[in-house]
């Protein structure tokens, strides 16, 4: 049992401490750019003057150390390492005239810009958080008096509502389902017959559904047939110049209204 837990080559205490410190450190970096910035700070020179080559070497050494200690580095640290290795080679080797692409200097300059920009953002973030803040340094009114909404309700109805309401009452006592020979089929002719006498009253936009035979909306097959017939009839009426049709958006109710005489 004991063998299982025994390290074949025990690490020295100092190695362990160093390894652990590094683990903690890696965890506290917010990505490779942050690690680079921290390393750059140890050079104690202005970011604009510092050597990107030296920085790249520092970073690569750090990654190498982590590898030796078998620390797992997130993929983006390794991506940055390979990019820095590439940068290093570009900076060290004479430019290959057959190869396109940015020069080592361009790449280094951009990295310097990125670091400087990140550093600047860190600074202003700290300045921002150091400002007087609402709820901490200054305060809003403690008892805001909300604007009271005085709501007035205005009721409305259309002529079609009125007529349907009346029809409903007149037919209530002796209601007989609308029976036709082809009982589930509405035709454009019938829809036209139905709509013509009513259309004169549609001064306002009214839903096409209102012109379907009463009760037909309750039955799927009848509803489809009536909707198609009523729609076809409304197209016919529009063609005749008697009505206008609109649909405010996709799948919104289709609405019609009569055309005023002067437009006819």
């Amino acid at each position, binding site marked *: 049992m004991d063998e299982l837990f025994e390290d074949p080559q025990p690490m020295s205490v100092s190695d362990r401490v160093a390894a652990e410190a590094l683990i903690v450190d890696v965890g506290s970096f917010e990505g490779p750019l942050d690690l680079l910035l921290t390393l750059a700070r140890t050079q104690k020179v202005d970011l604009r003057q510092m050597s990107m080559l030296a920085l790249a070497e520092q970073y690569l050494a750090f990654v190498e150390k982590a590898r030796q200690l078998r620390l797992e580095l997130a993929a983006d640290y390794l991506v940055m390492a390979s990019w820095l290795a590439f940068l290093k080679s570009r900076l060290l080797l004479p430019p290959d005239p057959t190869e396109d692409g940015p020069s080592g200097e361009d790449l280094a300059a951009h990295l310097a810009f990125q670091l400087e920009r990140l550093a600047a953002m860190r600074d202003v973030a700290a300045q921002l958080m150091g400002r007087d803040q609402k709820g901490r340094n200054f*305060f*809003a*009114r*403690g*008892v805001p*008096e*909300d*604007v*009271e*909404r*005085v*709501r*007035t*309700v*205005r*009721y*409305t*109805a*259309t*002529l079609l*509502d*009125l*007529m*349907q*309401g*009346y*029809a*409903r*009452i*007149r*037919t*209530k*006592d*002796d*209601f*007989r389902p*609308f029976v036709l020979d082809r009982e589930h089929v509405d035709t454009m002719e*019938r829809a036209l*017959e*139905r*709509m013509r*006498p*009513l259309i004169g*009253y549609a*001064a306002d936009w009214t839903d096409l559904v209102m*012109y*379907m*035979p*009463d*009760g037909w909306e309750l039955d799927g097959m009848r509803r489809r047939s009536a909707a198609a017939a009523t729609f076809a009839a409304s197209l016919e009426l529009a063609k005749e110049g008697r009505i206008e049709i609109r649909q405010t958006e996709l799948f919104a109710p289709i609405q019609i209204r009569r055309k005023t005489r002067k437009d006819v």
Partner: protein
Amino acid sequence: MSDDDLEHEASLFDAPTPGEQERMVEAILFASAEPVSLRELEDRLPHGCEPAKAIATLTRRYEGRGVRLVRIAEAWAFRTAPDLGYLMQKETVEVRKLSRAAIETLAIVAYHQPVTRAEIEEIRGVSVSRGTLDQLIEMDWIKLGRRKMTPGRPVTFIVTQEFLDHFGLESARDLPGIKELRAAGLLDNRLPPGRTDAPDEERGGDEQADMFEDD
């Protein structure tokens, strides 16, 4: 705390100037969610402050302004000047569809006017609530007509000019008749034969004929 500390504290917290105290009280009262008592002000202000004085000055300062410093029981708070309360209201108009009962009642009045409440109830087959009629009267769509010359002399209801304007009608006679309703599929049954009880005397000849014609 040692004596030294106490002494140090006392000198650190020399009472601020009256003007400073006034600013402090003003800020505390502004930010507080509840009225603040003198005692609490004393607790919160630096040592040696006299909040009562600051309150007195502030009260004068805010006299006639848009907000006032008011006393609520033993505590103080800023409140909107009462004459400006109306600024804290916002009017909105909501348009709502008339209820089915109201539409039916309105339709009956329109088609059968002048009509009594009892007649409306008979036609609808259910009682008509006072509220429904009131609502329609309030909307200025129906109004009281002549009393009926029948026992009890019941009041009648008729539609108003406002009603005609709203529905774009020149007169109630322009309402489509039964025949048109039927042709439109809105009325898809036959009236039972022999039903001649409709109190429609007022309606014009043509329309009346329409209404009771079987096809």
